């Protein structure tokens, strides 16, 4: 059945020009984890799909599609006994205590990134 939320019937569909495949790196990661695990037989794609449908149908579903995707994946892994919610919470606490090193991207702070010389002759 289509979504029954009456407000959905009034919202225009907003196509977006040149939309990226993934909007953020985490979307790409969570997408690929689900596909990878189903390809390796941890669950069938249909099992995942049913979970996703249930998440999307919740009245408090996220408008961000991949947040629903993440919750579906976590729920399914929990059901399968692969990973329990506490494990994620523990790992999360650890990551928060020791945040991953920022991507290597060092600058010399006293130098501009790039200099485009003036096309006019120097005044002084």
């Amino acid at each position: 059945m289509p979504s029954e939320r009456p407000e959905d019937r009034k919202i225009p569909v907003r196509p977006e020009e040149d939309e990226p495949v993934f909007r953020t790196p985490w979307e790409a990661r969570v997408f690929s984890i689900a596909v990878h695990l189903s390809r390796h037989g941890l669950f069938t794609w249909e099992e995942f799909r049913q979970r996703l449908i249930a998440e999307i149908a919740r009245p408090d579903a996220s408008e961000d599609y991949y947040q629903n995707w993440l919750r579906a994946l976590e729920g399914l892994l929990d059901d399968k006994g692969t990973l329990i919610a506490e494990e994620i919470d523990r790992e999360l606490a650890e990551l928060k205590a020791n945040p991953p090193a920022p991507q290597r991207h060092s600058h010399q702070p006293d130098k501009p990134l790039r200099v485009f010389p003036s096309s006019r002759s120097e005044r002084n």
Partner: protein
Amino acid sequence: MAANHQAHEHHRHDEPESDITLRVKALESILVSKGLVDPQALDMLIDTYEHRVGPHIGAKVVARAWSDPAYKRRLLEDGTAAVNELGFPPGPEGINLIVLENTPKVHNVVVCTLCSCYPWGTLGLPPVWYKSPAYRARAVGDPRGVLREFGTELDDDVEIRVWDSSAEVRYLVLPERPPGTERMTEEELAGLVTRDSMIGVAKAKSPKAGARKRPGNGRAEHRV
């Protein structure tokens, strides 16, 4: 006010971007430590869907069908086999692909009312609007209105058929070949076939519109 309140509730589950980034990192790192996930395999999957698989594949299929009547027959009979025949593997979900032909009197539109089922092998991953509650509800309730939002006006005598993707079946729309394209090569034709025309919310580009990006030579842009 109650309705407003509800609309607000709607968002309560959203987590800030930084939290969710960390949460996904935590999930991945646990799965890696359990030996269930290989980060390099994830990189490859992401690369596939960001760079290799996308609507350019569907466009080649459509252009071949427009140019080769025997191929078109095979495509309409067995979409999965005909796409395979061009060297494109079916989507990772190993799904049955059904190709729906648009005609002057019948226009097909594809939706997934429950989630986001989509022909990954020929179109890549779906755009955000395809997954939105608005599209999922309104494609079924008010397809003409939705098409209008995409700038697609259909005559009143055109029948609209809305197809709901499922676990077993994915659909690809074979749009009508635009007039004035009789002398175009298959490659040029592929340049007229947009993603939206293969979902059925738009028609294929006309050769004039396709040529806009290449001023001067009067030929359709065929970078796909």
